[in-house]
């Protein structure tokens, strides 16, 4: 008698396609009219679909804040194009017109495609999202080289400038690399921040 064996499938067949995207530049600078642009190029082996939108960037948050679709709908006209497809090797120029005030990021997010292998597979699918800061002044971000910490531990750094500051660390880790005016970041000796951040799940 044949024994019925039920399979628990995590993958119908092995799929290890590469998803790749080049962005140039990854940090945008708006001109005097508040317009910025960047170029994205696909290195993926299949056609990928993307959305682009503007997201507010708050000083107390390390990453772009991904609001609900309702909150972002009013900003749709500020990014062009909003949706696009990239065949392997294709590129697309994205243009952004900034609102009058506030700090913003351009968020480029991969969309699942009905005809992609990714959706047909079980297992763990990975989608990519790119968040790129947009600076208003050509002087932004100011660069600041952190002084290496001599002992194991962390230091709090605060940006007292009027412009955004980018932190460069030769050794150690920093919780946020770009600080808006008034923003804070932790600078820690090697591994301390990584373990603290990932191990506890708490934002520093």
């Amino acid at each position, binding site marked *: 008698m044949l024994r019925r064996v039920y*399979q628990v499938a995590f*993958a119908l067949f092995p799929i290890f396609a590469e998803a790749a995207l080049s962005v140039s530049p*990854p940090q945008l600078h708006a001109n005097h009219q508040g317009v910025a642009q960047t170029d994205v190029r696909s290195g993926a082996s299949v056609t990928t679909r993307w959305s682009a939108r503007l997201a507010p960037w708050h000083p107390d948050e390390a990453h*772009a804040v991904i609001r609900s679709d309702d909150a972002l709908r009013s900003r749709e006209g500020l990014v062009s194009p909003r949706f696009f497809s990239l065949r392997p090797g294709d590129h697309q120029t994205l243009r952004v017109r900034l609102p009058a005030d506030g700090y913003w990021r351009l968020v480029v997010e991969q969309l699942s495609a009905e005809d992609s292998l990714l959706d047909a597979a079980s*297992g763990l699918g990975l989608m990519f999202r*790119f968040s790129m800061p947009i600076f208003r002044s050509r002087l932004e971000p100011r660069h600041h080289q952190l002084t290496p910490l001599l002992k194991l531990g962390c230091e709090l750094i605060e940006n007292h400038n009027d412009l955004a500051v980018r932190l460069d660390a030769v050794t150690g880790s920093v919780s946020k690399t770009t600080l808006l005016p008034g923003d804070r970041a932790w600078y820690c000796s090697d591994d301390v921040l990584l373990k603290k951040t*990932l191990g506890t799940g708490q934002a520093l």
Partner: protein
Amino acid sequence: MSSINALRYETSSGNGAVKQSRKLIRSAFSYALLFSSFALDLAHAQSSATLTVSLTVADSCNISGVNHISFGSQTAGQTLTSSQSQAGSVTIVCAGSSTAVSVNFSNGLNSDGSSRRLQNAAGGSYLSYGLEFSSDGTNYVPVALSHAGVSVTPGSGGTTYNLRASLPSGTSFVRSGAYSDQLTVSISF
């Protein structure tokens, strides 16, 4: 060029060659006049303009990674006696200025607030899985839910960051079917 050769010839040959050297000088002078006249004609015939040539080299970052991690197949009714891991990777290459990048992993689509979960395609059945990240390929640290992100500074030669997903020991495969989840990898510049 010709006038220089004539003078050198004179100093190295003495009186007997004076006439020949003078002849050479006159010849060179004639050529010089002819060429300068030709150059003047060209100048009058062409209008001049200043052309500014500029080139801006923008920073660029390339991010690549596998878009799928497979756990293979298991038999319903079995229980894992040891954890089962599968690896993936994210490679970041930045050219230009050293661009610091923050890498963040979402909670997936099926999290229950305490762990990430694969969901049965038919619904109603879940399998918890763990996620780990390594910046050196050796030391893996768990990626907790809603973690703050990992700051890395990739080199221009490319830096590969490793990702590992694992089903913990004791996982029971009660219900057959296809299980999946979708993670968003956020790259913040």
